[in-house]
């Protein structure tokens, strides 16, 4: 019950923040959509960072490191620090400047004018919605997966049909998803983008803080950093994968397993260099076969897993973080900035914020490989480690609040963004700028946000067993494939309407092809381990260049409008 109480209190604080920020609301559509360009450096950093980090940041990073080891940090975090920082500096400031000068509220408004095309908006709108919706699903499904296990046993008489028997009495995903949606909807509905920015800032501080608190307690329980470094699973001289330690919660001690507990076997042990290594502490790819108990038959079944990361996968993963350049909700956050100087803190501190959140989670994930059963679902690793090593309901409640904070700080921006895009790029664009009063525009946006929240909630319930983290990578891949569009729009005068359309179509077709090949959302690599986003990006970029070069250049007035500085 303590856990539930902390979650309840946290949601109440969020509602109070929403109410507080609604008192700053100026009542105009511009204030609702982009906070009247009034957000300063700190709020911008927190809202941009909170928006780009989802449940992936705490739960996903720990789970991925449990599976693949410390290479997870370089694969996803440190490269994001570099690429995101460069995008904020090279793309974000220019888009903010053009948006403020010409009054853009959405990406599509910018692309329509830059490429002199009405049609590009109608082409982009369904694609952006298609890619944002899975991102929303990640949050709602993820929240359900987090809350049910930590509240198990709270209401045994009411919730009698748990996802798995061990979680009986826990708050079911349909209820937690509904509550999360209603809370986010409330503060976005009344506070608009300013409300979302303030709530984001608070939630970002919460999930950064909770990550560090969890790390501190885990390290204490393992006997310090140095001792914790010896805990990950090891390969012995016979090629067996063993756990050298176990944690006794009652004694509160880390004890040596004598003899070491065998949990798996390296499938090809011809490489004797692997003897006495901890595969989670390096990145050399090693195939290991584990045994996992089938919950229905109770029999042990083999599962094969690759620990480490193939080099080609590591290299081509750099295309994934390019996605932030095309996130429509991030475009909207950029436009909330009071001035260009507000970006300075974000450009400098974003890589550091990533490091603060990801390093502890990646370490916990690699240590977990030496203590937890190998068959545990990766998203459950962080809470299982806390449960094993700390076992304190207060801390579990606070950490759950932190995970929810990471989830909701992305959900709010995405809901708001879809309302903004629909209102401005479809309704207002078709009817004409002056056809609707400002109040009417607000009403349309809010109505659409309610509709999209309801539709997303229903979809999330229908797909509640989907692997949310693989889905996230597909979502990022789609946006990354569209990156050549925004880069060419800002940096290449010769980029034409036909080139832009060809680029979008190439990205869409190649992404859809690989998504189909993956079985609609599974982990998928091309050839020796190339991420599909790299190929989609390449095809999109080549289409943009080739088609632009053989079609009529943009008009001089458009070039003057979008390239005002002397080159």
């Amino acid at each position, binding site marked *: 019950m303590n856990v539930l109480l902390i979650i309840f209190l946290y949601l109440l604080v969020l509602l109070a923040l929403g109410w507080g920020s609604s008192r700053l609301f100026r009542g105009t559509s511009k204030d609702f959509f982009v906070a009247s360009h009034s957000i300063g450096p700190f709020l911008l950093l927190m809202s941009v960072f909170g928006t780009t980090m989802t449940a992936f940041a705490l739960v996903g990073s720990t789970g991925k490191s449990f599976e693949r080891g410390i290479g997870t940090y370089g694969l996803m975090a*440190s490269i994001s620090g570099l690429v995101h920082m460069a995008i904020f500096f090279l793309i974000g400031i220019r888009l903010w400047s053009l948006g403020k000068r010409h009054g853009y509220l959405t990406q599509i408004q910018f692309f329509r004018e830059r490429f002199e095309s009405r049609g590009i908006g109608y082409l982009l709108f369904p694609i952006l919605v298609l890619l944002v919706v899975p991102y929303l699903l990640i949050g709602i499904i993820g929240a359900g997966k987090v809350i049910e296990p930590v509240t198990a046993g709270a209401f045994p008489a009411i919730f009698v049909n748990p996802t798995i028997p061990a979680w009986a009495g826990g708050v079911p995903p349909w209820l937690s998803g509904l509550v999360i949606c209603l809370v986010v909807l409330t503060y976005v509905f009344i506070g608009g983008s300013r409300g979302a920015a303030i709530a984001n800032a608070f939630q970002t501080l919460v999930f950064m803080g909770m990550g560090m608190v969890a790390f501190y307690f885990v390290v204490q329980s393992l006997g310090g950093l140095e001792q914790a470094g010896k805990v990950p699973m090891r390969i012995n001289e016979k090629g067996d994968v063993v756990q050298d330690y176990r944690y006794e919660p009652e004694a509160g001690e880390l004890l040596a397993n004598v003899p070491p507990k065998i949990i798996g076997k390296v499938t090809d042990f011809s490489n004797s260099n692997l003897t006495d290594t901890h595969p989670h502490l*390096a990145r050399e790819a090693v195939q290991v076969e584990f045994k996992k108990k089938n919950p229905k038959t109770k029999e042990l079944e083999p599962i094969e897993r690759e620990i480490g990361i193939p080099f080609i996968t590591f290299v081509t993963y750099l295309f994934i973080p390019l996605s932030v350049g095309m996130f429509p909700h991030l475009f909207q956050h950029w436009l909330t900035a009071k001035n260009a100087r507000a970006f300075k803190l974000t*450009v400098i501190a974003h890589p550091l914020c990533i490091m603060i959140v990801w390093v502890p989670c990646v370490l916990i994930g690699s240590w977990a490989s030496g203590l937890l059963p190998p068959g545990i679902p990766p998203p459950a690793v962080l809470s299982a480690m806390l449960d094993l090593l700390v076992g304190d309901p207060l801390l579990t409640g606070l950490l759950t609040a932190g995970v929810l904070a990471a989830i909701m700080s992305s959900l709010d921006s995405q809901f708001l963004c879809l309302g903004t895009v629909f209102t401005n790029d479809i309704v207002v664009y078709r009817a004409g700028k002056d056809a609707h009063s400002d109040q009417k525009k607000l009403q349309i946006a809010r109505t659409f946000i309610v509709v999209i929240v309801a539709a997303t909630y229903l979809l999330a319930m229908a797909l509640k067993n989907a692997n949310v983290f693989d889905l996230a990578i597909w979502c990022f891949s789609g946006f990354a494939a569209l990156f050549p569009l925004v880069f060419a729009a800002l940096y290449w005068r010769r980029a034409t309407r036909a080139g832009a359309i060809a680029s979008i179509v190439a990205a869409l077709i190649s992404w859809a092809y690989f998504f189909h090949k993956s079985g609609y959302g599974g982990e998928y690599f091309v050839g020796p381990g190339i991420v599909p986003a790299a190929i989609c990006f390449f095809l999109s970029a080549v289409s943009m260049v080739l088609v632009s070069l053989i079609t009529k250049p943009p008009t001089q007035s458009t070039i003057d409008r979008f390239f005002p500085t002397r080159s």
Partner: protein
Amino acid sequence: MKIFWTVFIVLLFLHQDFWNWASEDGIALGMPRGLLYHAFFSLACSGLGAWAVFRAWPDEWEQYAEQSEEDAEGGEQSGSMSGSE
């Protein structure tokens, strides 16, 4: 901006630290070498961001956003803004 792009490409190369690939030696500050290297890499990214902010800030884009359309018409007739891309 040439310096920014050069350092960016150098960092892209340094990110692919194949020389640390199979090594789990040298745990320092409680971290294996590969992770510690990438934590310092994050610091270097922040350093590049700081350099960009203090030495390559796009003032011309800031001015462009703050100008009114009327000012701009006059300005654009007499040429283009100062600064470089």
